[in-house]
């Protein structure tokens, strides 16, 4: 049997250690789209981390003589309505996108892991109450919950992050709960319980560990959405405020110059699209590599 399995999987398989992550990485590497996603996300992280060194100019430096300069020459991607270098602003804007995205994922996950585990593990009244609240929050059409929250809290990067996090929490909670429920009913959890493991130990050692793939995949796909929602809020004027270099804000400020300088609005939009595409591809790839059964859910 062992020989047959090795022959089927090819020589590579017998060399690789049979851990979950190594196995997933092998599957991940085989998908070209997933690798493209990984490269895009890696470049994005690189741009955000190395912004001061990578940006060719100061993102805040105005030069009114060169305002709305076309792409090419001194300004590789052109200059905006104040003569600021768009490429530099894009590079610094990746910081806003990743910061808001990353922190809002953290907020959504913190809420989801707490409430989802509580609901899935405790069951009963707790479960009913949590799920009712989730249901109510999910009744707000896409974006509107975030808009309502940020309009109450007031604009700004921090408030946008909170709003996006709250927006993502209900979906994440529902997902974690159903993953916990599945794990709870599994044989290995029943075995652990029968062996006398405490509820806390079962939760942390067995249930959470098996919820992890779902959480990783969700977080990656959520990043894509969080970047879109941040951009949308900033575009509406509810998110990041000038002079912050936020991609959504840059698109919005280019709106008044669509005829004379369409690059001011269109170039930052390409950056948003690329970033979202990267996280979407990475998320799809991770899903197929970690747990293809999630296909229908995520």
């Amino acid at each position: 049997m062992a020989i047959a399995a090795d022959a089927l999987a090819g020589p590579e398989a017998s060399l690789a250690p049979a851990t979950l992550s190594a196995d997933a990485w092998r599957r991940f590497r085989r998908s070209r789209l997933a690798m493209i996603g990984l490269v895009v996300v890696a470049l994005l992280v690189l741009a955000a981390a190395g912004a001061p060194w990578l940006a060719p100019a100061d993102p805040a430096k105005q030069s009114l003589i060169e305002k709305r300069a076309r792409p090419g020459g001194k300004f590789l991607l052109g200059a905006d309505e104040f003569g600021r270098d768009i490429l530099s602003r894009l590079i610094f804007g990746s910081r806003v996108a990743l910061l808001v995205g990353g922190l809002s994922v953290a907020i959504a996950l913190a809420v989801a892991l707490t409430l989802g585990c509580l609901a899935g593990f405790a069951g009963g009244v707790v479960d009913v109450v949590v799920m009712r609240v989730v249901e109510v929050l999910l009744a707000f059409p896409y974006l509107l919950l975030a808009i309502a929250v940020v309009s109450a809290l007031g604009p700004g990067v921090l408030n946008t992050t909170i709003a996006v996090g709250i927006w993502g929490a209900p979906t994440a909670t529902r997902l974690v709960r159903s993953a916990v429920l599945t794990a709870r009913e599994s044989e290995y959890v029943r075995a652990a319980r029968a062996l006398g493991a405490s509820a806390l130990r079962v939760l942390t050692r067995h249930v959470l560990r098996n919820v992890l793939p779902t959480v990783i995949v969700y977080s990656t796909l959520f990043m894509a959405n969080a970047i879109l929602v941040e951009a949308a809020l900033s575009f509406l004027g509810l998110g990041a405020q000038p002079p912050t270099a936020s991609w959504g804000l840059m698109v919005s400020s280019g709106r008044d110059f669509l005829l004379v300088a369409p690059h001011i609005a269109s170039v930052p939009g390409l950056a948003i699209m690329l970033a979202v595409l990267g996280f979407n591809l990475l998320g799809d790839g991770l899903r197929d590599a970690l747990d293809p059964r999630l296909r229908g859910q995520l």
Partner: protein
Amino acid sequence: MLTFVARRLLLAVPVLLGVVFVVMLTVELIPGDAVALMLGEHATPDAVARLRDYLGLDKPLLVRYAAYVGHLARGDLGRSIQQNRPVVDELADAWPATLELTLAALVLAAAAGVAAGVVSAVWPNSLFDAAARVGSLFGLSMPVFWTGLVLIVIFALWLPWLPVGGTGSLGHLVLPAVTLALPSVAMVARMTRSSVLEVLREDYVRTARAKGVAERLVVSKHALRNAAIPILTLLGLQAGQLMGGAVLTETVFAWPGLGRLMVKAIFARDYVLLQGAVLVFALAFVLINLAVDVAYGALDPRIARQG
């Protein structure tokens, strides 16, 4: 079937009450003095006191909630602070435009998405399939407001075929509807492709083919009908996506609907109007999903029987 519909209606009531509560809570979230914020810095103390009294902000939250629900039941959403008109009237002026836009986008998403998905599933890995899949990936990643601006530049400014914004003719509807529909077209196409592909592998499809049913009928009658449920679920969820997207699209195209009214209300700090607008969107979304639920029952009698 009737008890099924009644049950679903009953289940929607607590959700709606919860939605009203959350909408009320948003004003609670405002840091500092909400009333002073709403009226701006030049308000007289008298006006502040009157608005505070009108909003009942000195009463406990639950009392205000009960009063709000009571007013709501009589179709009263309060008066907008800026225009001093009944909020219901302002919403009534705006909602037909939003309905027109989202409905057009939904029809577009369903038609184009299902068509592209079916063609992709019938000829998987063909040139069309590859193009549709790459297109869907981009469609899902494009920010709606940006797509709108790019379409304006191309089809209204460079090629003066369509108006830049506003309403009036069918031509005014084309760009906003296409903009709003694009991400949903991508979602529906993806979902249709995978569910039709799955159904096409079923035994009854093989049986139908074996007994000589024309391929066209196999796809339209056997495959598409059985793939309909996941597609319908998605369309219901997409309605929410479209309503949220409408806020952005209406802003880009100066479309006089609920979304633009909402954004204006936010900038005017008119929270009474904002609450009304958010409430209408949420109610519509809940009702659409209710309709989708009922449609399941009609499509698949087994679901109705289980209740």
